[in-house]
Each structure stands twice: as C-alpha cells, then as structure tokens.
C-alpha cells in the first residue's frame, strides 16, 4: 500500500507542478490536461480507503489552486467560453466530474449560470460513479466545494439563485446517494474480509455525516422545516437501509449535529425510528445519548427548560419499555444503563418528581427479575452500572431523606454484592455528612439504618 501510494503521489506531484506551470503561462487547456491526468490517479482500485484518502487530500489541495486561478480569471473578465462544457469532453468519468465540480463552483461564485441549476446538475451527474469508495470521495468533494455557496434564504433573492429548499434537496440527495454507496461497501469482496471491510467503513463514516453537518449549517432551516422536510427524509434513508453501522452512526450524528430544540420538537418521530432499527444496532446508546443531551439542555444556564407540553419523561419511559420488550437479548447492564439515563433525565428536568425516579427504580427491579438476575458479582459490569444508577439520586438531590421515601431504592440496593453495597451505603452517609443532613424522626432513622444495614450488621 505504501509503495502504491508513493507512486500515485509522485504522479500527482508531477502533474500538479505541470498544471501550475501552464497556469502561470496562461495555457489553460494544457493545465486542464494535466489536472485531468492528476485526477486520473483517483480511478485506482488498488488503494485502501486510508491510502485513497491521502491521495484524495493531496489532489483536492491542488485542485483548489486551479479553482482560485479560474476565479481570478473570471473576476478579471477573462472568462473562458463554455468552460463548463469543455471539461465534459474528458473521456474518463472520474476526472471529468471532479473538473466539472470545480468549474461549476467557479460558475456559481461568478454567477455565470443559475446557481440552483448547477447544484442540481452536479449532484445528479455524480450518479455516474457507482463504485462505493470512489463515489463517496467524489461526493465528499462536491460537498466540500459547495460549502459556502449553498443558497440560504427562504425565498430566491434573484431569479434562479435558489433558496434553502434547493440546498436541502441538494444535500439530502447527496446524503442518500452517499449512504447507499457506504452501505453497499459491505457487499464488496469476499466474505472472509467482512471484518476488514467493516473497519474500513467505520473509517469513512465522516464522509457521510458531513452531509448532516452541512444541513445543520443552513441558518434558514427552522424547526418547522427540520420537522417536515429534513428529518423525515434522513430517517427514511436510515430506517430503510437496514444496515446496523449506518443506522448507529447516522442516528448518533443527528443527535449531535442538530440543535436540542429540534430534537424536542421531533422526539416522537425520532423515537419511532429507533424502534424500527436493525436489532444489531445498540439503540440504548442512541437513546442514552439523546436523553443526556436533552437533560443537559434543560439544566443549562439560560435555557427555558423543557416545554410543559412535551412529556419528555413519558416518551422516553415508553420508548425504553418498548426496547426492553422487543429485545429479549438485552443484557442486564444495558437495561440498567438505560434506566440510569432516564433517572438522570428525571433528576435533571423534573427535580420535584420523586415518583419518576421511583418508577424507574421499580422498572429496573422488575426488569432484572425478568432477566433472572439473582446475584450480582462485585466486579461485574452490571454491578458498576447499578452502582452508577444508585449514586445518581444521592448526587443530584443531595438529600438522603428523599431517598428514604423511594420505595424501590432499597430493594435495588440489596441486589448488590456486599462490598458494593457497603460502598454505596458509605457514599450515602458521606453525602449526608457533607450536606449536614439531619434525620428529624426516629422513623426515618430506622429507615436509614435499614438502608445501610450492611454497614451496621
């Protein structure tokens, strides 16, 4: 791979040098020929994705030089007639499309032809590259080049300048084609190389995710447009691709890339999609990620919190229940980590609702019963997850007396092995000492001592 890459890079450097020399002498046609030769290296089938990426980065750097030259020429009034047509004479499709994208962006920046027509043309013509790796990088080039020229206004400012709807269509089409190619990668090659391909696909995920980033950068996409146009289109691709890797990554990407207000407004759609994902997708991670984000959003300084008409806890509670029901192979630690996230939400957003926390604890208990968990080993993952869950109310309430009112806290604590139980009990008592929590009644003293009996007896 190293040798192949070195050879390719040498060719690129030589052709790039020739290209620049021709540009210096204002010999554009010759420069385009060298550019085409340089881009021809991207037709290779011999490089791994990692090596291909290196090659791609060097070439696209050099193409930037060509773009700047053309921009300069156009802006000085020395526009080359029919350049958009001329570059389409190239016989091989890879160099042709890279050149077309470069020239197309120059045309957009110089208002040569309708911006929306060019964008539409570029994203459609890229269909010609059906090879997954080469197609992904080509479309990534398209996305990078058009980063600052996507129309971002509600209505067209001038005729044919395009509006945010055109940008959305452009990016969504590019995303769906890229996701398709990315998913198709898994079928290339022999089955014995499946793991390697899977790893390679992971390395390329950012190429697909950049589409969602681009959408999030469009200022005139509001909640309404996100809910009615953007999210349904993305979820349609994600759900129907049935590919665990894509689903896992894209769902996570949606959470990270779009604002929390959008997630609040589209919670049901998103959660519905979660329920339809491939069973191999670790949905709990997606849910936990979303719950944590929304919890942080609600508790952030300056935040208006969660609107009262969005029963966030109920939504997530139901969704988690569905997951547990539909995934009989859900591990106990996954079950507990889900409940821990829900507990965090309840404690963060609904601080006064002790019943929410108690409900989560009850569900955890019954879930563990259903899974037949009787004994939890001290150093197990389950033990760690359960300990995290039990410490949450201690940390976030800082009031042991509230804990005493939770009917399902003690039964859950008693499931732990002795050393862990002692650790949690001691944690509780330390919290009381730190906060100067006084126990006012003898009844409460009894409850407390019962709770921490592993330390007493």
């Amino acid at each position, binding site marked *: 791979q190293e040798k192949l890459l070195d050879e390719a890079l040498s060719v690129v450097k030589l052709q790039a040098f020739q290209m620049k020399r021709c540009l210096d002498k204002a010999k554009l046609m010759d420069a385009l020929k060298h550019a085409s030769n340089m881009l021809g290296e991207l037709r290779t089938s011999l490089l791994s994705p990692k090596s291909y990426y290196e090659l791609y980065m060097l070439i696209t750097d050099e193409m930037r030089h060509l773009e700047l030259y053309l921009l300069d020429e156009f802006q000085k009034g020395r526009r080359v007639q029919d350049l958009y047509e001329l570059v389409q004479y190239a*016989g091989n*499709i890879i160099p*042709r499309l890279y050149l077309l994208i470069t020239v197309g962006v120059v045309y957009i920046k110089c208002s040569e032809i309708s911006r929306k027509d060019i964008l539409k043309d570029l994203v459609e013509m890229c269909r010609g590259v*059906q*090879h997954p790796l080469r197609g992904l990088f080509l479309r990534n080039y398209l996305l990078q080049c058009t980063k600052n020229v996507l129309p971002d206004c509600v209505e067209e400012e001038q005729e044919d300048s395009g509006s945010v709807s055109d940008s959305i269509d452009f990016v969504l089409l590019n995303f769906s084609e890229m996701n398709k190619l990315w998913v*198709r990668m898994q079928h290339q090659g022999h089955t014995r190389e499946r793991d390697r391909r899977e790893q390679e696909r992971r390395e390329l995920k950012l190429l697909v995710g950049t589409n969602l980033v681009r959408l999030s950068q469009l200022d005139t996409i509001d909640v309404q447009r996100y809910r009615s146009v953007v999210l349904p289109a993305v979820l349609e691709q994600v759900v129907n691709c049935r590919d665990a890797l894509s689903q896992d990554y894209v769902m996570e990407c949606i959470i990270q890339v779009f604002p929390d207000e959008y997630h609040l407004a589209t919670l049901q759609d998103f959660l519905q999609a979660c329920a339809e994902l491939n069973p191999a997708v670790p949905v709990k991670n997606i849910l936990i990620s979303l719950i944590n984000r929304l919890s942080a959003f609600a508790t952030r300084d300056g935040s208006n919190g969660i609107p009262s008409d969005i029963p966030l806890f109920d939504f997530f509670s139901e969704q988690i229940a569905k997951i547990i029901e539909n995934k009989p192979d859900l591990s106990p630690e996954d079950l507990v980590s889900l409940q821990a996230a829900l507990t965090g939400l309840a404690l963060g957003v609904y601080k006064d609702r002790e019943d929410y926390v108690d409900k989560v604890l009850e569900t955890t208990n019954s879930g563990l019963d259903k899974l037949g968990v009787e004994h939890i080993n001290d150093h197990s993952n389950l033990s760690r997850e359960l300990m995290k869950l039990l410490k949450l109310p201690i940390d976030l309430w800082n009031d042991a007396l509230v804990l005493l009112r939770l009917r399902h806290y003690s039964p859950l604590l008693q499931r732990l092995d002795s050393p862990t139980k002692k650790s949690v009990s001691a944690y509780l008592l330390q919290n009381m000492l730190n906060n100067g929590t006084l126990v006012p009644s003898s009844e409460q003293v009894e409850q407390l001592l019962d709770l921490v009996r592993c330390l007493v007896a």
Partner: protein
Amino acid sequence: FGPSAEIEILLDGSDTRKTAELKLEDGRKERFPLYYDGETVSGKVNVVLKKSNGKLEHQGIKIEFIGQIDLYFDRGNRHEFVSMVRELARPGILTQNASYNFEFVNVEKPYESYTGSNVKLRYYLRVSMVKRLSDLVKEQEICVHTLAQYPDLNSSIKMEVGIEDCLHIEFEYNKSKYHLKDVIVGKIYFLLVRIKIKHMEIQVIKREIAGSGPNALNENETLAKFEIMDGAPVRGESIPIRLFLSGYDLTPTMRDINKKFSVKYYLNLVLVDEEERRYFKQQEVTLFRKADKKRRPIASN
C-alpha cells in the same frame, strides 16, 4: 527543363470566405475554402511565364469544376458526378503573363467533401493548358459542406435490451438525429443486474461502406470512447449520459452517395464486467451538419 509557366488559381472572396479542414490521404489536415451547394464558384486564373521574355505556345486553356469519388481499391476508375468546363483561352502563343476570369454559376454540389479509409469524395478546380508535348495542369481543392435542417420532431430512441436472467437495461437517447455540435443526452436505467459490472462506456463508431455488392468494403472506426459509469450499479439505478459531439472529428451521415459509398454512425453502449466480458448494444444515429446562424445566404438566381 521544367514547366515553362506557373498557373495560379485565385478564388473570389478568398479573404472573407470561411475555410474548413479536410483530411488528406496521408492523414494530414489542410484548410480549403468552404463552399455550399448552389454557390457560384468564381475567380481568376493567372498564368505566369517563367521566362519574362519567353514565348509559350499552347493549344488552349480551360478550367474544369469537378466533383469526384475515388475508391482506393479501384484507383483506375474515377467517378465524376459533377463536371463542368469553361474555356479560358483559345490556342495561341503567350508572350507575357496572362489572367483569365472564370465563373461557374450556382454549381450543384450535392454531396459533402469526404476523405475516408477506402474512399474519397472531393471537389476541385482544374486548369489545363494543352501543349504539344505535355499539358500544364494545376488543381485547386475546395471543401464542400452539406447542410441539413431536420424538422423539430426528432424522435428519441428508447429501448429495453437484455440477456435473460443476467442483465436488463433500458437505454434512452434524446434524439435519433444529431448535428455535429450537438449533445447526446440520455440515460441508462438498470432493470436487472446479476453480473459484476466494472464500468460502462459509450462509443461513437463510424462505419464506412465503400463499393457495393459482394465487393463492398466495410471499415469500422471507433471515434470516441466515453465512460459514463464507474463501478457496479444495482437495480433501479439511473445513469445519466451527456456526450458532446463537438469534441470529436465527425462527418455527417452519408447514405449511398452516388451509389458508391455510405458513412454511417452508431452509438455503441458497452458494459464491461469484472472478468472483462463485454456486453454491448449498438444503435444507429443520424448525424447532420446544421447551418451556422451567421452563414451568408446562398446566392439565388
């Protein structure tokens, strides 16, 4: 020794008349004045004596306008489809340089100039000074283009082809007749894909058929190879085609020219699989030369 005079043929309007490239038999290209059907071919013939005080006796000077088809495999036979002659000078003696005007009015030039693999169609002026021992001859080639204007209704080509259980595609080209600077706009839609395709290309193939009957010579030449797809599609994929013909050296379609030859064009859609097997579908298209908007109108009677 050597010719006693030089003959020059100067065409009227040569400073303003457009020129066009013609391929010579040796493959080189040269530019010649461009004429169209019905245009008058006129000019002047200059006879320049080598020796300024010499005498040149001749039996007449004439100029011919000839349109001719040469079949390379039948060199002895030249097929003149246009032949016109004008007498420039009667037999006499030239004691000084002479100049003669000539005019072939509204000459019919029914076919386009063409140089191919086995046949050539040319138009030229030939000045002959008949002398006792050997004639002085001078030729001047001209280039002729034929223009066509097809009706707006130019049907598209749309067809489904396939190999059972293996590969089914629907291809579509936006027209069946293209002018030489046209764009082939089309698409390939995959209905069934059970082979591992590596890539797909469109070739523009020129077929020259020289002669007729069992002696006819077919010569195929691939003028263009244009890759339209890289990689393997799946069912339902639609691949766009946009092929600019102005990038290639093409002539108009020529059908049964003077019953001597034809030049036809085909679009060859080729799919290549991982094992280098090729699947192809050839489709004839008509190419024609469209008038430039700026062209001067043909002189009328």
